[in-house]
C-alpha cells in the first residue's frame, strides 16, 4: 500500500426518521442526549481515519448525508484534520429509512475513486441499529470489519478486533474494506485553532440525488419499505414510593418486592 485513500462517514443528527416522531412534542432532552452520542462516535471515526492517514500517508474524505445543518459536523471533521468533504443534501431524502440511507451513502462512496477504507462510527444507539456499515459492505461488495475496538493496517491487509456482546473476534481482510469503530477505539483530538482556520478553505462538494443518479421517487418517506401504523409518546414513568432508610431499608425493599411477587 502506497498511501491510503480513506472515507469517513459522518452521521447527521438527529436522523430524519426519528425527527418526524419528535416534532409534535417537546422531547428536547432526548434529542440532546442523542446528539451527544452521535457527535462522540463521529469524532472517534474521524480520529481513527486521521491516525491511519498519519501512519500510512494519504487522504481523508468526509462523507455525510443530511440537511444543511449537517455542515457543522463536516466542519468539525475538517478542523480535526480531514482533507475534504462530500455533503449529500437533497430535500427528497427527508424521512429516508436505513435501507435507503445505506443505498445513497454507497452511491456517494462510489463517486470517490480508489477508496481503500471506509470508516464509520458503529452508531449503535441511534435507531439505525449500527448496521449501516455492514449494509455498505453488502452494497459495495467489500469485506466488513465492524464494531472495532482496534484497527491496524499492514500492507494491503486490515486487521480489526471486533467487540460485541459475544466477546472479541479477531478479523482480517484485504483492502479495500469497510470498518466501523466503537466507543473504546480512541480519544478524539480537539481541533486546533490552526485546524479550524484551515478547515474554512477545505473543499466541500455538495451532491444532490441527480448527481448520484438516484431517482427522487426511490427515497424518502413515501418510498420506505416499512410504514408506521401508529405512534404515541409513552406516558412518562411516574415516581413511585420513596422511603428514608431507618436501618431497615433492605427489609423494606424485600417487602415491596414480595408484594410485587418479585421475590
Amino acid at each position: 500500500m502506497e498511501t491510503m485513500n480513506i472515507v469517513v462517514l459522518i452521521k447527521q443528527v438527529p436522523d430524519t426518521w426519528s425527527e418526524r416522531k419528535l416534532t409534535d412534542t417537546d422531547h428536547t432532552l432526548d434529542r440532546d442526549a442523542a446528539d451527544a452520542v452521535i457527535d462522540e462516535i463521529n469524532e472517534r471515526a474521524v480520529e481513527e481515519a486521521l491516525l491511519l492517514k498519519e501512519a500510512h500517508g494519504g487522504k481523508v474524505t468526509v462523507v455525510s448525508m443530511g440537511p444543511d445543518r449537517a455542515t457543522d459536523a463536516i466542519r468539525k471533521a475538517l478542523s480535526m484534520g480531514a482533507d475534504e468533504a462530500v455533503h449529500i443534501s437533497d430535500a427528497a431524502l427527508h424521512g429516508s429509512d436505513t435501507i435507503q440511507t445505506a443505498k445513497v451513502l454507497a452511491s456517494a462512496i462510489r463517486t470517490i475513486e480508489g477508496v481503500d477504507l471506509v470508516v464509520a462510527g458503529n452508531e449503535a444507539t441511534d435507531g439505525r441499529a449500527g448496521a449501516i456499515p455492514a449494509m455498505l459492505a453488502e452494497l459495495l461488495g467489500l469485506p466488513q470489519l465492524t464494531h472495532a475496538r482496534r484497527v491496524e493496517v499492514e500492507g494491503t491487509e486490515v486487521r480489526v478486533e471486533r467487540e460485541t456482546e459475544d466477546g472479541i473476534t479477531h478479523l482480517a481482510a484485504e483492502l479495500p474494506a469497510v470498518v466501523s469503530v466503537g466507543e473504546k477505539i480512541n480519544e478524539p483530538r480537539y481541533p486546533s485553532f490552526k485546524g479550524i482556520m484551515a478547515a474554512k478553505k477545505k473543499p466541500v462538494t455538495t451532491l444532490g440525488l441527480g448527481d448520484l443518479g438516484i431517482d427522487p421517487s426511490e427515497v424518502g418517506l413515501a418510498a420506505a419499505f416499512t410504514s408506521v401504523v401508529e405512534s404515541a409518546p409513552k406516558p412518562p414513568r411516574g415516581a413511585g414510593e420513596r422511603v428514608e432508610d431507618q436501618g431497615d431499608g433492605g427489609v423494606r425493599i424485600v417487602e415491596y418486592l414480595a408484594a410485587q411477587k418479585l421475590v
Partner: protein
Amino acid sequence: MSEVLVLVDHVDGAVRKSTLELLTAARRLGEPSAVVVGAPGTSAKIRESLAGHGAAKVYVVESDTATDLLVTPQVDALALLAERTSPAAVLVSATAEGKEIAGRVALRTGSGWLVDVDDIAADGVATQSVFGGAYVVKSKVTTGTPVITVRPGAIDAEAAEGAATEEAVEVPVAEASKPVRVTGREPVVAGDRPELSEASVVVSGGRGVGSADSFSVVEELADALGGAVGASRAAVDSGYYPGQFQVGQTGKTVSPQLYVALGISGAIQHRAGMQTSKTIVAVNKDPEAPIFEIADFGVVGDLFTVAPQLSQEVAKRRG
C-alpha cells in the same frame, strides 16, 4: 400456513434463549423454520431444544468454513431460503451481529426491515420502543419479505411441540462479497450469572459504589436475586467494572422484570438503557437524585448498608 424463518443463535452447541423467544414469536405468524448455520454437527446438538419450542423444520446449513467467516454465511443462507420458501417473515435476534445480518438480508432480498422490535402481532405489525422508551411505535413491512430483529428478552419463550424435521441446505457462496477471515475468537466467558440483556433481574452499580473492590456488594445482591450485574458509565469509566456491562445509551439496553440501581444518579443517558424495565428499585443517599423520578420503590440511604441487608433478606426468603 406459511413458513417463518428463524435464524438460530447458538454458542458452544447450545441455543441462545433469544432464539427460543424468536420461535415463540414466529408461531404467531406461521410455521417456524429454524435456520442453523454452523460447523458440521451443530444441528445435531441443538435440534431437540428447537423441537421443544415449536420448530416445524430445521434447515441445516453446515460447513467447515461457516465459523471462519463473519456474518456472510448467515446472510447467504437466509437470503437463499427467503427466496426459496417465500416466508411470512425472517426473524433474527437484535444483537449487534443479528442486526448486521438482518440489514444485509433486507438489502439482498429487497425487503423492509424493522429493527429492535419488542413485540409482533399475528398480522405482522411490530411494536418498537424508541428513544429509550419515550415513544411506542407500531410498524409493518410493506415491501418484500418482512425482516424483523427482535430484542432479546422482550418476548417470553414458550415451550411447544415441533417436528423439527431436518433438511440439509447447500448454499453457494455469494461471489460479490469479499470474505473477512475470522482469525481468532475470545468469547465472553459465560459466568454463573445470566447474560445482561437477557436477565430478568439486573442489579447495577454506579459511581456511588466507589471502587472495583466494593462492586462485590452489587454482585452479591445480583447473585441473591439470580440476576445479572450492570454498571453506569461513570462506574465503567472509573474502572470499577468492565465496559461490556455498561447500561445506557452507549451501553446495553435492558428491560428486565426488576432493575435495581445502586449509587446511580439516573442521568438521561443511563435511563435510556433501563427505563423500560418493568419494576425499578433505587438506592441513593441523595434524596434529589433523578433516579427516584422513575423508581417504583426508592430508598434514600447508604447502599453499603441497604444492599447487604437486602441480599440477606432475599436469601432468607429463598431459604
